[in-house]
């Protein structure tokens, strides 16, 4: 009796369904609720795949921080009413369908060309191994990414800064 595959398919089904609802839902707040559900299922799948750290970061960063900020912005700005939103026409769907087609084709190819690779039985990646790999092996990349984020923050501050009144009168 192996529970893991059953759990995996259950979680995967929840994730796919929640993501589809998140896309088709007209109301932004409902869409966020679905997306958070999807992130949760994804985190649980990561956990099943013996990557507990990734699972936790999925919840802390995506479900807990980014989605909360989205919700904050939506509540502050109140972007229109759900009834006024129109369902996208065929033209809007085309790029999505195109990329979905590519992904599906890649999946089918991958499945068709699959060779039985002996998967190493993972006992789970500990926090220590993860951090060592992240900060020793990919340390430079991490620094570059964090500097990019800093630039983005400074840029956002600059864009959001109020111009001094005297200059705005001049221009």
């Amino acid at each position: 009796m192996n529970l893991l595959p059953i759990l995996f398919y259950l979680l995967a089904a929840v994730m796919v369904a929640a993501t589809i609802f998140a896309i088709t839902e007209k109301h932004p707040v409902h869409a966020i609720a679905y997306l958070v559900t999807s992130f949760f299922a994804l985190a649980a799948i990561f956990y099943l795949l013996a990557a507990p750290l990734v699972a936790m970061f999925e919840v802390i960063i995506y479900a807990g921080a980014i989605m909360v900020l989205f919700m904050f912005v939506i509540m502050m700005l109140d972007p229109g009413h759900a009834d006024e939103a129109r369902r996208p026409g065929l033209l809007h769907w085309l790029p999505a369908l195109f990329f979905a087609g590519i992904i599906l084709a890649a999946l089918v190819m991958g499945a068709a060309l699959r060779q039985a690779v002996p998967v190493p039985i993972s006992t789970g990646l500990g926090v220590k191994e993860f951090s060592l790999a992240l900060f020793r092996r990919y340390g430079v990349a991490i620094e570059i990414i964090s500097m990019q984020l800093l630039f983005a923050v400074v840029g956002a501050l600059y864009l959001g800064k109020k111009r001094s009144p005297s200059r705005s009168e001049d221009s």
Partner: protein
Amino acid sequence: MTMVPLHILAALLKVSVILVAILTLAAYMVFAERRLLAWIQDRKGPNRVGPFGLLQPLADLIKLLAKEDFCPPAGDKWLFYLAPAMAAIPAIVTFALVPVGAPVDLFGTVVDLQIVDLNVGLLLFLALSSIAVYGVALGGWASNSKYALLGSIRGLAQLISYELSMGLSLVPVVMLARSVRLSEIVSAQAGVWFIVYQPLAFLIFLLSILAECKRIPFDLPEAEGELVAGFHTEYSGMRFGLFFVGEYINIIVLGGLASTFFLGGWHGPLLPPVVWFTLKTLSFAFLFIWLRGTLPRLRYDQLMHLGWKLLTPLALVNILVTAWWLYLKG
């Protein structure tokens, strides 16, 4: 063959015992808070139901269950009904991580007095506390009322801000314990409690959990003087009760975690470990009630300044200093 069902049985038993214990404790926290506040303010408090008013929580429960479960017609039904659960469940689940006592020897097998001992325990706590925001946010938004919405926007901003300083204040703890597993954090404090090495981190953590619980002086999301009852203005009956009890469960859980991270968990002389743990946790609860009876509410900008301009930078500096200290110590 028989090992696995026994294991599951033991886990189920632990879950049910702890669930019943914290729900009862939360109900009596409400009572204790009313009595203590009354004592602080020189009143009597609820003392009519049963001896010393001890059956008051039961009476409250019956009252809440008997009330009409009302959803505002303009509200968002689905999210309105879901939000109280979203507020209470993360708080209850977090308690699964807390080691409440030393492992005991039961019929030849060693049983941890902790439901799960994850190798990412501390991170799961941070994850669950970041999820608890949704109950407040969605509940206020789904009520479709301006007071509730204002309350939940405040709640969102407050919880995000203080989560940051809370997480950062725990980094030195992880550095000292060299683990994010809660049982190892506790056993690392067998000699000296972390509060001795990290008084600043403890203070930051204490203020942050006070804000995470939405308690006075940080109860901006429900500031009754200006927002009626904030994010749960429109709630009635047991759904309001769920928000309410969730808040008290949160106090117990965060108190338990604070004693786990800084006060040595269940370590202590003479008394049995479970008693030590309960004492430490309840003293946090008492502190929270005491603060409520003593302090006025902060203004919104003061709250944000405290979080972003004082606690977060201090926590960062503290991490740096701790890192240097550990580095020099070798």
